[in-house]
């Protein structure tokens, strides 16, 4: 007998108080794999992403931000003013309903609303609470406000990105905002499994700073062991040459090429037509090529400027040399490999016309993602959630509505 494929997170219920980048990106994995996610937000203090450009046609509106839209598909939105004295009537029901509470406020905020872990477990002893913050729930800097851009600096990525003869250019944007969500998902799924085995919930304290450092741990060991502070080095490598980003035919077009082994070097030379300089002594071995990398790069570029980045990537890859177009936004939206995996999809949207969403970035071969549902308008599902999910009586719902609690 073949059982019908279940949705992976079928039956998992998430009371989602996260906002901005990290929390919503993490919770989307659950939404796209079948969990019920109720995102609780307020027009009085909207998710900052709802206020951030780009807006379709540059027309500003809480339901018009692409930045919000692409991170919040497949979630339901309940509008709630947490500062209202009667908000507790709703949050209590949400806590009773939920398996997981996710939040991303500055540490301390949940306590002010009586929603801290210690209070919540009194209502639901086996709840899992995921708290993600800049620097963790404890410690002298826990209340220091911030966001992904400066945190990328604190986590070490800014200092090591750029050219040795220049100040740091910095890793792009709120780089750590794309590391922490991966750890948030790891934490919540692990806690769900622990709860399945033991019946116990728990509080997960995820510092986005600490997550960022995980990616750099060998560099940190180089300091704790060797006392070395790693420095910016452009696109140079210790173990490959040519290794760089080379200008190609067209305006601001580039191809990345990385040649590690002797075999790859010979293939590379063949692709570019075995010019005389390939045979020169100064490029004979990897050691020589590393030593003369600057001159080598210039010579490589004399060839690449005559060809398109796409052509170079195809020729190099066919010859077994790692190469890739330095893709801009138009390129990666149309990249056939990312398309194959459904990295982006467009959903109709009543305010934006269409909204481009970004799928969570893993493929499970037997349990596909659920059908895409457009991101919610603020408070769009308040009534549905209150009545259908939370079993709230009509009179109470109307009274809360008239009391401006759902704002």
């Amino acid at each position, binding site marked *: 007998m073949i059982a019908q494929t279940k949705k992976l997170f079928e039956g998992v219920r998430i009371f989602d108080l996260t906002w901005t980048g990290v929390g919503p990106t993490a919770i989307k994995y659950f939404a796209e794999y079948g969990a019920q996610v109720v995102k609780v937000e307020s027009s009085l203090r909207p998710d900052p992403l709802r206020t951030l450009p780009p807006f*379709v046609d540059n027309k500003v509106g809480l339901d018009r931000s692409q930045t919000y839209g692409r991170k919040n598909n497949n979630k339901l939105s309940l509008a709630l003013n947490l500062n209202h004295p009667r908000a507790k009537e709703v949050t209590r029901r949400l806590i009773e309903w939920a398996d997981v509470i996710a939040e991303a406020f500055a540490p301390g905020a949940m306590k002010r609303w009586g929603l801290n872990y210690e209070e919540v477990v009194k209502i639901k002893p086996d709840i899992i609470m995921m708290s993600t913050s800049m620097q963790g729930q404890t410690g002298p800097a826990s209340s220091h406000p911030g966001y992904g851009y400066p945190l990328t600096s*604190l986590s070490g990525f800014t200092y090591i990105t750029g050219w040795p003869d220049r100040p740091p250019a910095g890793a792009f944007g709120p780089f750590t905002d794309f590391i922490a969500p*991966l750890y948030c998902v790891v934490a919540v799924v692990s806690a769900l499994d622990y709860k399945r085995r033991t019946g116990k919930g728990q509080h997960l304290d*995820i510092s986005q700073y600490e997550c960022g450092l995980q990616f750099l741990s060998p560099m940190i060991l180089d300091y*704790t062991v*060797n006392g070395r502070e790693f420095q910016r080095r452009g696109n140079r490598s210790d173990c490959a040459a040519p290794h760089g980003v080379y200008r190609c035919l067209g305006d601001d077009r*580039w191809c*990345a090429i990385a040649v590690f082994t002797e075999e790859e070097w010979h293939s590379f030379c063949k692709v570019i037509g075995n010019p005389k300089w390939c045979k020169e002594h100064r490029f004979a071995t990897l050691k020589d090529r590393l030593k003369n990398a600057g001159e080598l790069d210039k010579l490589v570029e004399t060839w690449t400027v005559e060809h398109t980045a796409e052509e170079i990537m195809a020729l190099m890859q066919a010859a077994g040399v790692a190469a890739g177009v330095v893709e801009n936004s138009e390129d990666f939206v149309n990249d056939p490999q990312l398309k194959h995996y459904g990295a982006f999809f467009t959903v109709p949207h009543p305010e934006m016309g269409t909204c481009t969403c970004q799928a969570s970035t893993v493929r499970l071969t037997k349990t596909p993602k659920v059908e895409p549902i457009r991101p919610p308008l603020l408070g769009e599902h308040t009534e549905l959630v209150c009545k259908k999910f939370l079993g709230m009586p009509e009179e109470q719902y109307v009274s809360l509505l008239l009391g401006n609690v759902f704002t």
Partner: protein
Amino acid sequence: MDSEQKSERMLSPYRVLDLADEKGLLCGKILGDLGADVIKVEKPGGDPTRNIGPFYKDIRDPEKSLYWFAFNTSKRGITLNIKKPEGQGIFKKLVEKADVVIESFSPGYMDKLGLGYSGLSKMNPRIILTSVSPFGQEGPYRDYKTSDLVSTALSGVLYITGDADRPPVRISFPVAYQFAGAEAALGTLMALYYRNITGEGQQVDTSTQWSMNPAQYDVIGWWAALKKIYKRQGPFLIRPNTGIIFRQHWPCKDGYVTFYYFGGPTGAASNRALVQWIGEEGFDVAFMKDRDWPKFDYALISQEEVNRMEKPTAEFFKSHTKKELLAGATKRGVMLYPAATPKDMLESEQLAFRKYWAKLEHPELGAEITYPDACFKASETTCTIRRRAPLIGEHNEEIYQKELGFSAKELVALKKRGIIYRIKK
């Protein structure tokens, strides 16, 4: 969160066989740090990944790679030649008692060895096969080669990184593969979650290109909403709709700090606090004092105004060290952090308070090494790195003899045939 040792860890019941190279090492580390029994399976003589630097005291040696140390904490290690049928047979025996296999070979390679998902699931239908590859198990780039630089290029992140007047530039220390490694860990856990409900394992397919792509952040949004191609701006940020450009990385006395006047209600208190602080030290910020910060928006002011705001801000930052600026920002609630180096991290009071640094003994080096500890804290379970990375074949006897039941004699025979140990020439 207390620091007492709790008996069962989050992933205690699970056994993981880790065949991955640098593309997927982080996956097994994450699972191991959370309590899974992760066995690194290397080829006889040791994995080539051990040749990746930096090295302990800069000595190039497969037992001294700090890269290896960093991404193999909490793992045990055995050696096995899975290219030979006899080795494959032993691997299948291991699979019978395992929950997860992590691999990062070229797509199709495991199938050729009879160790692809269809082969492994015959031995153990509950097995999860987690594959990390450059571009995924399917699609037109499936067989393409990659490197840190090439994955960053094709993820869309490289184009927007670097100074405007120079070529795109990568993060100098390679991190592209860590996205895939962490993605593989969460995918593995999702597959385990499903298996524990249905009894059915599956293959998890992660790609270095795709898993790094989200780090292009709102570049996709600018394209989708306005067909604007976002370009690299070095230490500046730009609003592509108005062309307004403003600084985010600033020189200070002994390095760099990151700050910009964040718009809207989110940034108001921070902006006000910084202006107050700059004013207290005698720089001319009078013109900014009464600004209606909750309404501040880079889209609504002129470039001249931006430049005017940045002048005293730059002078103020230049007059202080990273440490002074961080301490003041923490105290005053300014959304500013320094561009930290490892030295700054090790000196962080916050990380010390949270016991983020763990020390592991390396008896064979006669050294104790300081590591970043596990990736998060949990109230019910201990999350800490548990042991240093394995030496080559360190747990061969423990696993082959005690756990698989091979006799010492059989082990010697396997050694002679080059199945477990490299035959010395």
